[in-house]
């Protein structure tokens, strides 16, 4: 079941109606858990067993850890062993492609059966997210910052809650568990606000991310065809397209799931805060995938010493955090390079800060001027986009082919066959460009104007006409349905 589908809307409506119709908190928890597991089963079928296994493991480990004396070595050892076990499970699935030959070799030796075929493991949907939630829960219980959850159903719901089970946001027990314990009351305002958020998510996903994805997939699938004769305008456009696609895809997904949770009365963590308006790479990473970066900060960066260490060590910590982030995103070396490149940007930014300040002073640049802020945002967007090439290209060789050609943007030499292959109708291309402009305009204005509040102030006929027009635009012009290969959300694979 895709989030961007009528089936999901029908499912959400059913879950919501039954949830608020049930009178007791316990039955509501059971209902949400059943609905969540059914949702996951519909997405991932057999891998539901992996989710249940990790839930059971986390629950038991949490009880064991809480039973040990606070601050004891025993607690630390058990926590460490538990975290290692969870990480090992994640690594086993995540890096199966890399480890499969070794595993095969081991199995052949052990079983003496040379016909044993290569293991074909795929990562269960959302595993990176629910394993990270489990780790943070265990560490928090160990530190005493979170109470152990003794109700197995509530704990299972904390990990497997359907809005976040596939791709986050990565919830923390201290933030979500209290919400699961208290009875949610149906609120018309929350429902309206949740639907509004979901609608905005659908705009980003169906009107921007998926049509752009078709273009990006085509170009990145054949970069040498489009970058022939060292000309790379199409490569440049595809890279910028991917930067916008991944933002609209992931933030669109986040809006849909946060909106869904809000309808049920739950508040999930935000993941994005207008990241492409950041004025530095450091700021970008404070505003992009905030639940993951917050997790890495608390559970990786701080334990390494954070900022309370010598400068060189702090720089090393930044590299370690972003290396972990890169590895978390994928098994390929290109993901590691993507992470390290982002770390390099930040370290270089800090090291070069005094020099840049002197240059600005010499040139008498007004750093508060609007054009300078735009300039900084564009430079940041450019640097992030270059890093995205490593993220998207699939291999370092392909990325190294693409990056230099992006700076030679001319159409000359690109084969007409390649251009014809783009196959995006002119109307669709125009519509996508308009949708991109709308998304970024709303992002830009969101600090000054609360669009939702503005709409709420309008008379009912105007408001409803606006809502219906939005529904019309999304359902008619959106990229979905049997005519297209309906794209899943990009972050499901992590």
């Amino acid at each position, binding site marked *: 079941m895709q989030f961007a*589908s*009528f*089936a999901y809307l029908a499912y959400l409506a059913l879950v919501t109606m039954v949830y608020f119709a049930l009178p007791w908190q316990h039955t509501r928890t059971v209902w949400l858990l059943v609905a969540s597991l059914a949702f996951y089963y519909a997405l991932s079928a057999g891998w539901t067993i992996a989710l249940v296994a990790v839930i059971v493991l986390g629950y038991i480990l949490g009880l064991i850890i809480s039973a040990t004396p606070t601050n004891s070595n025993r607690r630390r050892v058990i926590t460490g062993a538990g975290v290692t076990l969870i990480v090992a499970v994640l690594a086993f699935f995540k890096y199966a492609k890399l480890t499969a030959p070794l595993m095969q070799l081991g199995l052949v030796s052990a079983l003496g059966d040379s016909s044993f075929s290569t293991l074909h493991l795929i990562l269960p949907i959302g595993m990176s997210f629910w394993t990270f939630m489990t780790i943070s829960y265990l560490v928090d219980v160990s530190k005493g910052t979170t109470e152990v959850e003794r109700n197995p159903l509530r704990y299972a719901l904390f990990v497997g809650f359907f809005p976040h089970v596939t791709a986050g946001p990565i919830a923390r027990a201290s933030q979500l568990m209290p919400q699961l314990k*208290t*009875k*949610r*009351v*149906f*609120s*018309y*305002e*929350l429902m309206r606000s949740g639907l509004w958020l979901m609608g905005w998510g659908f705009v980003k996903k169906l009107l921007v991310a998926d049509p752009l994805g078709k273009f990006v997939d085509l170009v990145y699938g054949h970069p040498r065809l489009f970058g022939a004769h060292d000309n790379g305008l199409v490569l440049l456009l595809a890279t910028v397209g991917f930067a916008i696609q991944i933002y609209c895809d992931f933030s669109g997904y986040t809006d849909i799931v946060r909106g869904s949770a809000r309808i049920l*009365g739950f*508040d999930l963590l935000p993941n994005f805060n207008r990241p492409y308006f950041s004025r530095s790479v450091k700021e970008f990473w404070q505003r992009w995938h905030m639940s993951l970066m917050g997790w890495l900060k608390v559970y990786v960066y701080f334990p390494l010493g954070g900022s309370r260490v010598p400068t060189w060590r702090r720089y090393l910590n930044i590299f370690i955090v972003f290396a972990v982030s890169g590895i978390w995103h994928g098994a390929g070396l290109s993901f590691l390079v993507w992470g390290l490149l982002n770390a390099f940007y930040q370290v270089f930014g800090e090291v070069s800060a005094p020099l840049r300040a002197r240059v600005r002073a010499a040139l008498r640049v007004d750093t508060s001027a609007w054009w300078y802020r735009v300039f900084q945002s564009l430079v940041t967007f450019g640097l992030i986009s270059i890093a995205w090439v490593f993220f998207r290209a699939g291999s370092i060789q392909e990325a190294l082919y693409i990056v230099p050609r992006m700076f030679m943007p001319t159409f000359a030499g690109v084969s007409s066959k390649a251009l014809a292959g783009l196959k995006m*109708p002119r*109307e*669709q291309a125009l519509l996508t460009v308009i949708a991109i402009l709308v998304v970024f305009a709303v992002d830009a204005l969101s600090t000054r104007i609360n669009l939702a509040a503005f709409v709420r102030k309008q008379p009912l006929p105007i408001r*409803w006409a606006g*809502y*219906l027009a939005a*529904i*019309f635009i999304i*359902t*008619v*012009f*959106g990229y*979905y*349905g*049997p*005519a*297209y290969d309906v794209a899943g959300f990009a972050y499901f694979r992590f």
Partner: protein
Amino acid sequence: MNTNAESPRHRIARLLKVIVFSSLVVGLVVATGAVLKPIRGGNSFAGPWESFRSQPRDSLDVMVFGTSHAFTSIDPSEVWRTAGVPTFVLAGPTQRLQTTRYYVDEALKTQHPDVIGLEMVAFTYAPDRYDSRFHLMNVGYMPPSVNRFKAGLFATPWGERTGALVDLWAYHDRWKELTPGDYDIVEKQKGYEYLRGWIPLVGGNKKPKSVADTTPREAAEATLTPAGVHNLKALRVIARECDRRDIQLVLMLTPTSPPAGYSPALGAGYRALSAEFDNVHLLDLSQPDAVPGLSYRDDFFDGGHPSHTGAQKTSRVFAHYLVTEFNLADRRGDAAYATWNDDAKKRDAYVAEVERKARAKKK
């Protein structure tokens, strides 16, 4: 975030607003889907439902269901001319029996035929044989009804159900190619009622070209294949419904090339059903000599389907079979069927026009 004390009156007002707004959304989705849905008149694949709805209640003595083999082979006008038996073909391309059973249920809401002919090629379809495009047509062009809902839900694979149930989902990308005719949602699917579900195939590849290709396939022992076992459930539902309504059910095959390719499956299905029901009959027109004068060289549009000339010859044999086997009345003198003769003439003009266009295209 959950403090929310509202008066009962306020709550009712809000509930009403939700209901009204939801109704508007549903109306918008349905109306937009109706506009975007491609025009498929009575001369198109899966397009005969509007023609069927225009038939007077309880006016049809024979109905034929099945796949493209049915709607290309049985010409109701020819059956009328030969025997005066009012016939309608309500079939869809690559239509599975799981869908056909809902076609039968829906058709029997307004018609009570004496005989139902069930063309049986779909009895050989494996469970995983599924053509998304054709299935969306077959289900999506059924009239809005409980049976359409059931076909969309129970005869459709999981991932395709939304498209089968919601036209907007299936056709929203047509916004780039809409014509003025698309906006006439009341009339756009009408037309060609006089064909009564038959689609004449003109021109084509005229396969097979050699006599060897017309050799009947060796008939395997007529036992149920796994596909047959899978499809028997839907077949049994149709037979039970016919039995309940006192309708004679003819399990049939129309001419195919090579001949008799599906005969073993037909035999197996017949044997399985005839043990349970008294109203089941067998008609295999795919046997080499079943349709006198049928040329495997000239009367086929392609390897599987007869051309309009082949359909004419097949329909005559089918008409004779109906009269001989079931003693159906000749309605040609009945005033209630006065339009059928005119419709047969319109059908001739239509076929002539299609032939003319095919010739022009060939030149």
